[in-house]
């Protein structure tokens, strides 16, 4: 009897060993060099169409705790001057005092404070943290999903997430009034981290 349990458990260890050997826990740096990351945004234009743009330069890292995923964390720093909406005059305006005021506030930052896992879907979580934008720090919630993780073909280990949130421009002191259909902007953050 005892022997049979020992054999069975040895067998189960053998079968699950490759998975247990690496559960993905660790600290990851964003793959900025390979550009496997993007922060896109969309905002309504007059209520008639979506205007999409992106922030080209940002960096960050996250830690992932497979045993206790809610103990994971993430920080992101964004260069707001890297805003890119494929229209030079508009980008210049977005960097000005009317919007991001990048001369005065050259860095935007997000630091997670806690993570609330989704009860129904183990791959989804609310990442709650402080976003500093245009000198204003506010708590925001990122609706995040882990897309996958594992070894890459070049000897590294990668993990990727996508997250969404919606910000109200005036909450961050952005004074420009674009009309009632354009009071908020939706952000889509897609990152791939390489384990350090």
């Amino acid at each position, binding site marked *: 009897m005892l022997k049979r349990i020992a054999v069975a458990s040895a067998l189960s260890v053998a079968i699950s060993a490759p998975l247990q050997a690496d559960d993905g826990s660790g600290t990851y740096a964003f793959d900025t060099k390979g550009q496997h990351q993007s922060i896109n945004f969309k905002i309504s234009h007059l209520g008639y169409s979506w205007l999409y743009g992106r922030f080209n330069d940002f960096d960050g890292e996250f830690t992932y705790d497979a045993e206790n995923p809610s103990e994971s964390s993430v920080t992101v720093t964004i260069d707001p001057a890297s805003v890119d909406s494929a229209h030079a005059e508009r980008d210049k305006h977005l960097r000005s005092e009317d919007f991001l005021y990048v001369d005065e506030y050259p860095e935007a930052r997000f630091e997670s404070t806690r993570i609330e896992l989704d009860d129904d879907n183990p791959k989804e979580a609310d990442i709650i943290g402080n976003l500093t934008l245009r000198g204003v720090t506010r708590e925001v919630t990122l609706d995040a999903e882990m897309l996958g993780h594992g070894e890459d073909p070049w000897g590294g280990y990668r993990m990727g997430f996508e997250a969404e949130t919606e910000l109200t421009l005036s909450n961050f002191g952005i004074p420009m009034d*674009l009309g009632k259909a354009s009071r908020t902007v939706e952000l889509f953050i897609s990152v791939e981290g390489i384990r350090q």
Partner: protein
Amino acid sequence: MPAGNTTERYGWVSAGLHWLIAIVVVGLFWLGWWMVDLSYYDDWYTLAPHIHRSVGILLIAAMILRLLWRWLSPPPPALASHSRFERAAAHMAHGLLYVLIFVAGITGYLISTADGSGIDVFDWFTVPSVTGEVKRMEDWAGSVHYWVTWAIIALAVVHALGAVKHHVVDRDETLRRMLGLRPR
């Protein structure tokens, strides 16, 4: 009034270009200063920059024409009554105004074409981008445009004060001959 300049006075082409460009430069400065603070729903929000860009391109064309004409028909020399300091100062101010107006025009063009798009001059013709997309060019070109246009206005004030001084204090022909008036 003859078309060309003589050794005594300005012809109507030079005088006309001078006053036209003076009005356009001041007008563009005012328009630019006013339009950047328009609210998004203002009727002029897209129209004012369109006029500013279009007139700016035409101003560069007028300045090129002015340089060509200056070469074809040199302006009259300074009045004999002007001191050496006055001649040197006026010469420097005139040269600098030419350079700054070109710099203002070119940097204005570089702001709008930094994404590789052309500039529509009214609904008449399009000036294409020569640089193609250059990331962040709109920022440095914008800063230069801002400060250079202020410098033009400051220098134009000094230039105008000089002309008024010659007219009122020295009571010479400096301003009169640019206005096409006969010697008094």
